[in-house]
């Protein structure tokens, strides 16, 4: 049963990857839709970022002084000025570790 569930889940997931690429003719999308599609990264990724920063493992809002919030702010500032992916991630992680291992100990 579990195997069948994996295969069905896999088919659905593959379909979500493939449908717009292989089945839909781009001319079917209007100019307005294409314009809105420019915002897909801006519309999708914050929905992964915000809960990851502002919720804890149990799904509750974190305190305003949570280390993750400071880590995210530092990553944001570093990323904004450096325009560098690795600097963004590393600065966020290092500042987060600095807070949880040194400041909070």
């Amino acid at each position, binding site marked *: 049963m579990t195997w069948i569930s994996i295969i069905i889940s896999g088919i659905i997931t593959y379909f979500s*990857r493939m449908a717009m690429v292989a089945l839909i003719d781009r001319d079917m999308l209007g100019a307005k839709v294409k314009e809105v599609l420019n915002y897909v990264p801006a*519309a999708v990724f914050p929905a992964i970022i915000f*809960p990851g920063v502002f919720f804890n493992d149990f799904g509750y809002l974190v305190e305003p002084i949570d280390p993750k919030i400071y880590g995210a702010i530092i990553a944001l500032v570093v990323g904004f000025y450096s325009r560098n992916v690795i600097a963004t991630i590393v600065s966020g992680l290092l500042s987060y570790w600095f807070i949880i291992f040194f400041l909070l100990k």
Partner: protein
Amino acid sequence: MLSKSKIFVKGTIAVLPHMLSVIPFGIITGAIGVELGFDPLLVYATSLIIFGGASQIIFMQLLSGGASSLIAITSVGVINSRHLLYGAVLSEYLEKLSFLKKLIISYFIVDQGFAESNKYIKQNSNISNPHYYILGTGVTLWLCWQLSTISGIILGSFIPEELGLKFAIPLTFLAIVVNDLRKLDHVFVMLVSGFASLILFDAPFKSYIILSPIVALSAAFIMLRLKR
């Protein structure tokens, strides 16, 4: 003119920084599956057949917690439906390919690969083989995901939990969108999406992952109309 292999390698290099979150996440996914009591082969099959980090963990957690297959499958479908949006964007660059090539490339469409490809292709609209860039990002992420889940299955979660490496996941995605903070219209859409996700977080089947983008894209649509 860049050769196909050079474009592929450029895609590979573009996603390498994201390994900081992909590899630990993969190890955790493999380890959790085994800890929940699933057969190692079955845990690995989720990486090969479903190939979608968060959805794999939710899938296994639901089933081991006694949820019905229907609920587990629905959750995977809802979480992964965001790929429809990636496909809609990428289809512009894949239009000219044969149907078979489209089918193959589709399997490799992943969050970070989509984001990096979209950024690169927008900035280099003159390249003739943009799909090699998409493949470069996708195949690299795929390979690292397979290897890291396998090592998690075999070795367990050997990364200390105290490190809080889960936090690398929001950071990776922050690194993806941070450049767009220079554009006010994008900032507006991001804030709508972010706050929508906090409000909708408890919606069933983790549907905040697709509902928040829908809310944000609707806001973008209204914004574009008002601008005119």
